[in-house]
């Protein structure tokens, strides 16, 4: 019965529309065109959250800085293993930036808080153990170094207090000093001390300035946290360390210069390898920073 009805319907349609075939084709075409048309034109763009470093609110900083007299030293990475590095005199924070100091920065610059930070400037682990935007974790010492902050965030902080990040050359220069001398790099016990300090776990939980400072009065260069530098991305170590001493020439242009000048300086090897493994948006449990300033 239903079949008859269907046939009748078609017959009726045929009466009204004698030219069924072209009509069907046209309707099919129209449907395809109209319904699948709006693929990408219906894109709604959410307003980007403005988090530009240039719109920072400046804050005061009570952190002590030490003057480092300029000088030269044999760089760890250099052309023909003999690269002399020269640094001008500069000022450097006497300790890493602490959790409480960073909180002060966030209060005045909420665009850098955990929930507001721009995804371009930090990965998902940014301040991951903070309870809220302005809440330090309960089990964390406010005087311990702030970690799980990206290079962009560290830079923003530095700018907000009228400073900058130190360069690798500057950091390494200050790192040459032990308690008594400016340059303890030739003392094997100093390299040993540094290597040992790298073995302890969760040293980022310790308060700053608990140990003795170095020759310059600068604390916690070792045994606390890895530290961001302004030019950490100048380290070409790929992770393929067997290759790094004769660098991969397709990955890096002019790579031949990137040899290490002192193979026995394992501590520096470790530091440079760490820098080479980082990207600017990374946030790592044991990576913090301190600031520097031009004189």
């Amino acid at each position: 019965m239903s079949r008859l009805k269907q046939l009748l319907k078609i017959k009726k349609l045929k009466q009204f529309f004698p030219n069924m075939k072209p009509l069907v084709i046209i309707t099919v075409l129209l449907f395809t065109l109209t319904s699948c048309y709006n693929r990408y034109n219906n894109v709604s763009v959410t307003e980007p959250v403005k988090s530009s470093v240039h719109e920072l609110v400046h804050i005061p900083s009570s952190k002590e800085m030490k003057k480092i007299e300029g000088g030269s030293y044999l760089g760890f990475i250099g052309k023909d293993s003999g690269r002399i590095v020269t640094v001008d005199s500069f000022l450097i924070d006497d300790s890493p930036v602490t959790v409480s100091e960073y909180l002060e920065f966030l209060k005045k610059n909420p665009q850098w808080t955990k929930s507001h930070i721009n995804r371009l400037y930090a990965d998902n682990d940014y301040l991951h153990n903070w309870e809220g935007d302005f809440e330090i974790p309960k089990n964390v010492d406010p005087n311990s170094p702030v970690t799980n902050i990206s290079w962009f965030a560290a830079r923003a902080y530095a700018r907000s207090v009228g400073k900058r990040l130190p360069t690798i050359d500057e950091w390494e220069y200050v790192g040459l000093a032990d308690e008594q001398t400016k340059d303890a790099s030739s003392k094997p016990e100093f390299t040993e001390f540094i290597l040992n300090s790298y073995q302890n776990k969760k040293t980022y939980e310790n308060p700053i300035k608990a140990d003795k400072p170095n020759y310059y009065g600068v604390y916690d260069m070792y045994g606390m946290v890895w530290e961001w530098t302004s030019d950490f991305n100048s380290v070409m170590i790929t992770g393929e360390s067997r290759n790094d001493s004769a660098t991969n020439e397709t990955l890096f242009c002019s790579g031949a210069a990137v040899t290490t000048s002192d193979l026995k300086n394992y501590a520096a090897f470790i530091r440079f390898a760490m820098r080479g493994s980082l990207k600017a948006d990374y946030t790592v449990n044991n990576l913090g920073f301190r600031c520097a300033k031009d004189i």
Partner: protein
Amino acid sequence: MKSLFRILVLSALIFTITACKQNNDSFFGHQTEYADNGENIKTDGTTETLAMVAPPFVPEPTGDRRAKKLIVNLETIEQIGELADGTEYNFWTFNGTVPGSFIRARVGDEIVLNLKNNENSNFPHNIDLHAVNGPGGGAEATFVAPGKEASFTFKALNPGLYVYHCATAPVGMHIANGMYGLILIEPEGGLPKVDKEFYIMQGDFYTKGKYGEKGLQDFDIDKAIDENPDYVVFNGNTGSLLGENELKVKTGETVRLFFGNGGPNLTSSIHLIGEIFDNVYVEGGTSINHNVQTSSIPAGGAAILEFKADVPGDYVLVDHAIFRAFHKGALGKIKVIGEDNPAVFKENEPIKTAS
């Protein structure tokens, strides 16, 4: 006539099918062409995540399964562990053990290597697998800072037993601290079946304190450069194959040892006191030597050692550079349990001398 013809056609078909199946079976020979066999092997479209097992045990044999996509998850973990009784060491590990978990795959597998660096690590790490045909054996692709992860895929082209290890600078230190393991790529059809399989890796350790000094020991880089270790051990601990950890086997069983040498410096002269290795897959490759007493395993190398447990008793596995075995810990035990076998070994009555 017609039925005879049909039978002939049928038998011809059967012959061709079985012949094709046996084509790449021989792990043992006829492979004079370069190993591009692996490249042409197609995976069957399925994916499996390899179930990880701690040493000295290994995952199930691949048998005659088809090549597939295999997911291998490794995590680099830095943790303090026991090097000897009362002596601790800051090990850097793959998956929390020294050596790292045994990876088992077959030729033609597409292996997805996911490497994660535990967030509590102090250092960046990566991995270089000697089974990989590709830059750095995967080292560049897997360079990970603490808390980060990376992944790469490689096709297993060559069957064999290969070492994997961390290759981050300073690479000597990463290896010396225990970051090594073995990856087995089984041939088409799998290795011949044996009753027991074990996974052992030798390593030399360099500590500030002398052998046996108690407490947490630090890595000594000068001793490492001088190639003068304090400990030479199996599986990261002087006691890893002793006491309740000794390997247990029954008489009559065939035993296969996947033996690797993480180094970083010393070559191992591996010998099982009281036994002869019936088969030694030389250097973990395709050639098989027979009736071997002591096999030389270079640092960064491996071999498959097989024997049949004929007589019950205690068999001691040693590095036959003998002072290492008795003074540095290169010693382990295989206990064979079962019926006596006097035809093979029998203690004789003392000879009575005429009074």
